[in-house]
């Protein structure tokens, strides 16, 4: 099967031949698995269950896919909603561990900081950053994760989180501010 097809093309073909859907699963399973991990679904089995449900939901609702959106945004939205349902149904708290992501976040916070040299000197440990990150409200974590770890544009974030683009910028601004104030004082000052 031609793998250079666009997502939208695969969606069209899947409606005629369901086997084509495997291309979308293969294309997105790793990416979405990492996304779930970043959202705080710590156990691999849980991630797989969520992914299974998400792909089945996507298949069932393929006809509602709007080609004016990116398929990836649509798929991220489904996975995000499934993850939130998972946390709600299990009464589980997200288990967030920032690894290489912490560097990206530090860089971002440095860029926005008035005194970058201070931040450079005061290197944060991943543990400290994770501790501050988990104290943020879910909506702030979602915004930071999508923007800095998943590298999504504002428009894509709007489609994933189903909020206006203006709200995305506000969320990001507030999330960064909240993260700074949740960090140790020497860093946030």
């Amino acid at each position, binding site marked *: 099967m031609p793998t250079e097809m666009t997502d939208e093309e695969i969606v069209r073909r899947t*409606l005629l031949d*369901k086997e084509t*859907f*495997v291309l979308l*699963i*293969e294309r997105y*399973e*790793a990416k979405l*698995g990492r996304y779930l991990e970043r959202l705080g679904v710590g156990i*691999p*089995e849980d*991630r*797989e269950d969520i*992914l*299974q449900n998400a*792909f*089945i939901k996507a*298949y*069932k*609702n*393929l*006809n*509602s896919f*709007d080609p004016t959106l990116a398929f990836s945004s649509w798929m991220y939205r489904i996975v995000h909603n499934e993850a939130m349902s998972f946390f709600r149904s299990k009464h589980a708290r997200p288990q967030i561990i920032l690894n290489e992501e912490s560097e990206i976040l530090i860089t971002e916070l440095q860029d926005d900081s008035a005194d970058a040299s201070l931040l450079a000197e005061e290197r944060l440990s991943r543990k400290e950053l994770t501790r501050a990150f988990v104290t943020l409200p879910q909506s702030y974590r979602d915004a930071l994760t999508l923007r800095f770890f998943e590298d999504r544009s504002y428009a894509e974030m*709007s489609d994933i989180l*189903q*909020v*206006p*683009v*203006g*709200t995305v910028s506000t969320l990001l601004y507030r999330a960064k501010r909240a993260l700074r104030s949740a960090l140790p004082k020497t860093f946030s000052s």
Partner: protein
Amino acid sequence: MTPTDQKNDHLAERVFERIESEHVTPRPRWEFIAKNYLFWALGALAVALGAFAFSATLFEIENVDWRLSAATHPNFFSFFLAAAPFIWIVTLALFIFIGYVNVRRTKHGYRYSLVVIALGAVLTSLTLGIGLYAIGFGGMLDETIGTHPPFFRPILVEERSWWLAPEKGLLVGQVEKVAEDLSSFTLRDFLGRMWEINGSNLRGPDLTVVARGGVVRIVGLPVQENLPASATSSVFHACFVFPWEIRGGLGNRQPPPPLAAIASTSEKNTATVRNDVCKNIRPYQRLRSIDESGL
């Protein structure tokens, strides 16, 4: 390769197993299209109903005579509580909210901000409401719907009840017959009772209203006279007469005043000479200024 990756290798297989075993098929496109249109339709319907509510709100605001509140109520606050169209304002707000919720649930509804949708719904409701009010729908709605809920009375019925209180010096009714010199006239109130109105204290603006006929409101005093047992009407001493025109309704225009009759009473046009009987009524100065400026 991590255990997660190994499991993911089989993800497609597992998804297909479930698709087969649970007989999952893509839902037809028309379902999504219909759902989307349904939300738009519900949103539009709610905004339209909000417009109806606003037309009734406008009708109530237009037809409540705020300037005469001092004559009908002890203070403005009690008048405000009695007259403000709370039920219609709440109805308007409710439908605008329903409209907002439904538009948000459409396919791309999330892309519009709360302000844009709310403002759009409010402005659409208000604009349509003004149009409906202008064609007389507000009054019709207020009258029709208003008679059904037990906790609500249409504003016109409410206002009639304020003015049908001769013991408080307030009277409302239809001018039936006017004396040639306009010194008295007959009035049929909304309960069907006939009143002989003494107009000797009326001035130019009041007489214009009387001469014009139609429905009028009178501020004055009931007269306790020894009427013969055969008398079919009561007597009322009028100090001020105000017109009662229903605004925002259809076909409520009253005929122009008979100019000759008013001209013949021109000597009464100076509003300074009402006798002491009228000067004692409350709130004399306020009513006098309203009378002179015209309603």
